[in-house]
Structures are given as structure tokens and as C-alpha cells.
């Protein structure tokens, strides 16, 4: 049960992470092309600014979120960890996952509704290239939703950090 859930979530985590990696790389190329084009050839890359802020930054942040959490990449306070890990049944870890799942679930739900509303409106950005704004709002519910699922799994199967238990 656990391993099936774990495998399923990890697949989507990795997929999102791959998109986030692509986003950071494209961000480097797009901003560089804009800057070098402007200062060397007087030909800036139109739309680089909007593309970076509206899509790449959002994708990098929110699609990178679930995998970074899953691999323990988020900074946390470790002072009490050795003691917390010794409590039988991991109640603190379970409670942490429950609280975080509720809040991220709430965030995913409402940002999801927002994204649907934006799709219905069909707004675009101003400027030479008119980017569809609604595609910018999709990534928050996707990333936070995936994170919520993982947190929900961790309520039942709390994460055990073996190195902390001596």
C-alpha cells in the first residue's frame, strides 16, 4: 500500500521537478538573450520579462515544491528532532503533516478555483506579445495539490529519518 502510493507520488514529483529544472534553464537563456541582445545588438528579446515572471518563476517555485519537500530539502529547526523521533508512533510528525496538509490543501483548492476563473475570463497580458495569463495560475494548485497528497500520506505513514534515531 505504502510503496504503491510512494511510487505514484514520486513519479509525479519527479515529473514536476523536471519541469522546474527546465524552467530555471530556460530562465537563464531567456534573460541572457534579452540582456545580450539589448546591450550588444540593440535588439532586446521581446516578452522575456513577462515570460520569466509569469511562467518560469511560478513553475520553478511551485512545481519544485513537492520534490524538494519529499527529499527533505526544506530548512527546519533540528534542536528537538532527536527527542521527537524517539516518541513511539511519531505523533508529532503525524500532527505536523496533518496541519500542513490542511493549509496546503486549502491553498491548492482556492488557487485552483482562481485558476479556473482565470481560464473562464481568458485574459492576456499587455505588451508586444500577449501571453495568456490563465496559464500562469495553473502551477500553484498543481504543486500545492501534489504536496498536499504527500502530506496526507505522511499522516498515515509518517516519515522516519533513520539517522536521527540512535
Amino acid at each position: 500500500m505504502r510503496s504503491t502510493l510512494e511510487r505514484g507520488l514520486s513519479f509525479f514529483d519527479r515529473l514536476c521537478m523536471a519541469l522546474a529544472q527546465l524552467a530555471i534553464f530556460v530562465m537563464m537563456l531567456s534573460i541572457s538573450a534579452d540582456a545580450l541582445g539589448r546591450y550588444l545588438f540593440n535588439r532586446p528579446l521581446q516578452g522575456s520579462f513577462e515570460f520569466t515572471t509569469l511562467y518560469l518563476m511560478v513553475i520553478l517555485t511551485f512545481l519544485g515544491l513537492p520534490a524538494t519537500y519529499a527529499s527533505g530539502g526544506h530548512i527546519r529547526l533540528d534542536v528537538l528532532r532527536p527527542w521527537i523521533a524517539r516518541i513511539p508512533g511519531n505523533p508529532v510528525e503525524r500532527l505536523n503533516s496533518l496541519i500542513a496538509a490542511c493549509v496546503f490543501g486549502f491553498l491548492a483548492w482556492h488557487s485552483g478555483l482562481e485558476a479556473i476563473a482565470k481560464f473562464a475570463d481568458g485574459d492576456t497580458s499587455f505588451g508586444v506579445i500577449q501571453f495568456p495569463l490563465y496559464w500562469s495560475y495553473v502551477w500553484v494548485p498543481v504543486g500545492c495539490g501534489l504536496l498536499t497528497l504527500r502530506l496526507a500520506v505522511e499522516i498515515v505513514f509518517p516519515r522516519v529519518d533513520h539517522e536521527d534515531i540512535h
Partner: protein
Amino acid sequence: MVSIAVGVTILLFILLLAGMPVAFTMLITGAVGLYATGGIYPLIGVIKAAPYEHVTSYTLSTLPMFVLMAEFLTAGRFTRDLFTASHKWLGHMRGGIAYAAVAGGVMLSAVSGSSTAAAGTLAAAAHPEMRRYGYDDSFSTGALAVIGTLAIMIPPSIGLVLFGVFTETSVGALLMAGLLPGGLTAIGYAITIAVIVRRDPKAAPTVAEPVPMREKIAGLKPVWPILLLMALMLTAIYSGAITPTEVGAVGALAALVIAVAMGRMGWREFLQALASATRNSAMILAIIACSAVFGIFLTLTGVTQDLLMTIQAADIPPFMVLMCVLLLLLVLGFFLDQLAILVLTLPLTFPLLSGLGFEPVWLGILFVKAAEIGLITPPMGINVFVVASTTKVPVGKVFRGVWPFVLVELLILAILVAFPAISLWLPGQMR
């Protein structure tokens, strides 16, 4: 309002102590606070928009770009070469490898914005050499942990970018402002090393044999593209014509091109660097997105305004307030990561201090410096743990070696407080 703010702050510390990630803690406490202040509708309004809006920022994209550049340079093994080159020039002096580590650390800091990464790289390169020449482990590892902290002050600094984004202070001015305090810190370290090796003959008992001039110059060969990149970036930021974001992106691209052109980066190293940069960036950006909710809650309560008025009514000298805030940062540094300290304290302390009339750029330097000291103080000095795990020297031993440097750090912080011009002169020249 005040009781809600106090209650939420207590919740914040409980969650942090329970091991909740810092980013999640900021989101949860912010959401609870908003609900307690205004009910469900303000909460929905903020939570669906604020995390999104805070990351759709062009200035903020400086951050992933600086992280990416540092990862490309590390993957291309340039950071190691910077130390080796310094070692050839300085190794023959008494305690020379430690000086070389300072010089290598300064150059490393000029291309990397992350202290922990710098400390890890330096320790891996310099510690085996120090051990070979019989350096005392406590002295050598302590010095390496401390030298790593230079990266957070010397541009490109992730701490300063974060401060700029949070407080809407010019990132370019902040990066330039970090240059002289960073140099002052490096000089402070070198003097400390000189005093230690003179007073304790066992600290650095032997010196390396002098290297012929030809070899010294040959040692510079692999590092000159990096030195050139560093100089170009600083000039570009100083000129003010190019935004720090563009400097970061072009810097990352240049680092990639240099590494590939010199045959130092294959497909595997490239993918590893990209994965590592994405993970680190996503972690920091998540903190920024989540703390947006907390920031709005704090603004809504008006606690900062109340506190400001109380202070002015009570006639407490602004300087006293500044001292209290710096003390708070140092104490938090015992337990928390530098970025976490900035994120937790800035929403309240920055409006307070700038409201009292302190210069934002100068505050940025003081905040980042105070947070930097926390990287090397027990029990949670992250750089110390990184160096201990890289060199396999016990953590306690590294902490013992760090103490003389902590005193010097405090002295430098005092100098920066006493002479704002050290921080403000260079950015003043930009305009």
C-alpha cells in the same frame, strides 16, 4: 490585535520547535492569524493570490540565477582551483594555507552566494593540505567554517538579494554595499589567523616550501576566466546599467560556457548542477511565497505601527532599538538558518527601523552580517556542521576553533554599526 499577534508568534515558535519546515510554518501561522483577524474571506483572498504574486517578480529571479551560476562553477571544479592558486602564492608563509583559504574564500564568495556551499568546497580542498603540514585540527577547521561565511556578504550574495526583495530596497545598491564590509571581514580573519599562529606555535607548525614564480603563474591559468567573470560582474552591477537579474543570468550562462569549453563539464555534471540549483532555488522561493501570507497578516494587525508609536512615545533612543534588534538576530542565529532569520524578523523589524530613520541599505548589511555570525555559533552553526562532516573532525573541536573568529566577527559588526560609511560609500558612488 496585539493578543492575536502574540498568540500567532507563540504558535510560530511551537511549530518551528516541532520540526515543521520554516516555509510551512510561515504559511500556517499567517493563515491562522488572518483567520483570527478577519475571518474566512480575507484569508481566502490572501491565500489564493499572495504566494503567487510574491514570486512573479523579476528582481526575485536574481536569486535562482546566482544559485545556478554557483552550481555550474562548482560542477566545473573551479572553486577548488581558486584555493589551489592561492595556496601556491601564499602557502610558504607561516599559517599560509589558512591565508590561502581566506584569499580563495574571497574569490569563491565573489562567484558564489551561498555560505554553506563555500564552506563545504573550501574544507574539501584546504583541509587535507592543512593536515599534511600538521595544522591543529581545531584551528584549521574553525578557520574554514568561518571563511565560508564570506560568501553571504561579498556579491553575489543570496542573503542581500533576499533582503532587497523583502524590503523593496535596490538589490544593486545592496550588492555593492556588501563589497567593503566583506573585504573588512576578510582582513579581520587574516589578522586573527596571524595572531593565532604567532601565539600558538602548534596551530600551524610547518610551512610549505616556496613555489617558483613560473609555477605560481601557471597556477592562475585555470582560474583566470573566473577572475575575469567576477570582475565583469562587479563592474556591470556597479555601472547600474544592467540589472542584477541580468548579471546573474549572463553570469550563469558564462560559467556554463567556460566550464564546457574547458572540458570540465559533461552531460552528467551539467544535469547534477541543474538539479541541485533547482532544488536550492525552489526551497528559498517556497519560503518567500509562504512568508507572503505571514507578512500580510502582520501588516493587517498594525503591530509594527503600534510598536513604532510606543517606542516614540516612550522616548526610547532609536539606536537602542537597533541594538536590541541586532541582539535578537544574534540570539536567533544560535538556532536558525540565516535565511530563516531574515524571513522571520524582517516583516516586523524592517518597517520599525526604517520608520525610525535608519538607512535601508545600511540595515541590510547589518542584518546580513548579524545573521552570518549565526552560521558559526553553537548549537546550530550550519557551516560548522558542513565543515565537520566534510573533514570528519568532531563538531565540538570545530566549535572550539571558531571562538576567536566569533569575537572578531562581533568586533566587525560593531565597526559596521559605528561607521555606516563603510557600507554606504560605494553604493553612493553608483548614482
